């Protein structure tokens, strides 16, 4: 992995008062993103607007495509053309992107998609918040594959985690999702952008061997193949069909058996390196509140009230939602009484917690159907119930 300092051209060093959507665009520019293809959709549009405004003086391309199918596919093309590329969307657009998210996984293409979630299904609540696309992020395209999904809880983290998303996408050659939501996306807060030399950016894993020896899917020791870009004389081929290390289609069970586990294992085998968690007062906790994104901020209020009442409450915040922190939750399940999982949906990530708890600890969901964040009292009530 080659880390370099960020290109100062894209870095708007200083303190700013930005909303999450803008901060995502700034994060992308700081990470070296120089290609953005997108389609307007509330509540994510401000990211595209910001990128369109900023890119002409940074040096790169913004293009508003005809739909989200085109946006995501243009990103894949641009990535193979040598650029770091990103897009932003929300529920309905995310659904349209699903097929080609599969193509990006199959071709092992680094790119970043931010999803500013709103209430669904269908057109749902265009202007109001939700966390209802969490399972779709993991399972939305057909077939078996793994992706990485991060969940920022503030505009500052929208900036920080978008850079992280680019870095992870380059290391693992996989699409990385920044799964934020309308509340964070439209919330203005202070965002500190450090000087370019303090921002670490991962460079693409370029192949450097002899041209005639290049095989697009020959694995390096870390299980991730080297990449080249179109126009460099390698005359390589790649496809969405199941393929061998030459990138040639091989349509049989044997090649499938070799390819598919690899696409997943390169993420799950490195889960410890990828997963970012934030824990608080977890050592003596009886109850652990697991949350992500905006919900983790809201639940701290409930946790504070519970602690005041003398309850032993720990918190576990998932900055990385996918891959899921199985190991940590399995460990905790042996020690604690119950998990409480508030999220703005009818029960998604809680299912993973329940699976990992495997009956060793209770699992309590605090649902919210979207349109607003939880009332901290609702979370507090479930904490009390879980403690009984």
């Amino acid at each position, binding site marked *: 992995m080659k880390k370099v300092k960020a290109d100062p051209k894209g870095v708007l060093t200083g303190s700013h*008062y930005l909303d999450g959507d803008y901060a995502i665009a700034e994060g992308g520019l700081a990470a070296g993103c120089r290609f953005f293809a997108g389609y307007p959709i509330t509540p994510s549009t401000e990211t595209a607007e910001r990128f369109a405004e900023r890119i002409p003086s940074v040096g790169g391309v913004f293009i508003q495509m005809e739909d989200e199918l085109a946006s995501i596919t243009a990103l894949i093309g641009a990535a193979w053309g040598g650029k770091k590329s990103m897009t932003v969307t929300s529920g309905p657009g995310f659904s349209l992107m699903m097929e080609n998210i599969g193509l990006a996984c199959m071709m092992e293409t680094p790119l970043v998609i931010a999803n500013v979630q709103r209430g669904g299904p269908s057109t749902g609540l265009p*202007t*109001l918040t939700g966390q209802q696309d969490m399972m779709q992020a993991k399972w939305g395209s057909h077939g078996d594959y793994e992706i990485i999904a991060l969940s920022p809880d503030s505009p500052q983290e929208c900036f920080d985690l978008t850079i992280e998303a680019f870095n992870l996408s380059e290391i693992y050659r996989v699409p990385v999702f920044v799964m934020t939501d*309308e509340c964070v996306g*439209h*919330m*203005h*807060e*202070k965002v500190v952008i450090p000087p370019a030399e303090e921002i670490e950016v991962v460079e693409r894993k370029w192949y450097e061997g002899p041209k005639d020896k290049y095989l697009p899917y020959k694995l390096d020791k870390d299980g991730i193949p080297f990449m080249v870009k179109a126009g460099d004389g390698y005359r390589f081929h790649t496809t969405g069909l199941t393929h061998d290390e030459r990138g040639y289609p091989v349509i049989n069970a044997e090649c499938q058996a070799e390819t598919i586990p690899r696409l997943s294992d390169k993420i799950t085998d490195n889960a410890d390196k990828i997963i970012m968690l934030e824990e608080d007062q977890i050592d003596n906790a009886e109850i652990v509140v697991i949350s992500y994104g905006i919900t983790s901020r809201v639940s701290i209020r409930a946790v504070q009230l519970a602690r005041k009442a003398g309850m032993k409450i720990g918190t576990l915040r998932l900055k990385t939602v996918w891959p899921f922190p199985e190991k940590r939750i399995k460990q905790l399940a042996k020690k604690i009484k119950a998990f409480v999982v508030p999220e703005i949906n009818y029960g998604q990530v809680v299912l993973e917690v329940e699976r990992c708890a495997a009956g060793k600890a209770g699992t309590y969901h605090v649902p919210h159907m979207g349109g607003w964040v939880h009332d*901290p009292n609702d979370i507090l009530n479930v904490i009390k119930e879980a403690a009984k």
Partner: protein
Amino acid sequence: MAEIRFSGFGGQGIIRCGLITGKALSLYDNKHATMTQSFGPEARGSACSSQVVVSADRVLYPYITTPEILVSMSQEAYDKYEPELRDKGILIIDTDLVKPKPIRGKIQMYAIPSTRFAEQLGNRIIANLVMLGFFTAVTKIASPEAMKKALPGLVPGRFLDLNIKAFDNGYDYGEEVLKTATKKKTTKSKK
């Protein structure tokens, strides 16, 4: 910790008020300030609002629940948001645009003809800046220096001076109103 709501109708620069206040507090007054706004069809035309949660520590819950300060620049917004204002809260209105009900509880009311002042300065579009100056003077939530420092980037560059003038105009009026109020109080207590 304080919760502020700016309200009015679309086009008055209500969102700007929240942005300027939030930026001033978090970048120049060393506070944490989270600004949210109403979006979508409901944010166009009729009652529109922006909210700022201010705190010495990190803001956790991003929305306001029972605001201490309500700024209303339209009757509709006043009617909609006045009931949620905290007892002992501060109500700030545009005298010409809002006809308030009798004051309930210990709510403090301050009034300014901000739109009229703006028109006198040459453009009613800067009524929100007059209001912000007034708000800054009477609430003391943010420093006037921070508020003015927050303007570049949030008002059009070529109108920066005019916006500052509008702010000062509202601020001075606010100081005056406060002085008169204190005088009245002192007179009262002398009785």
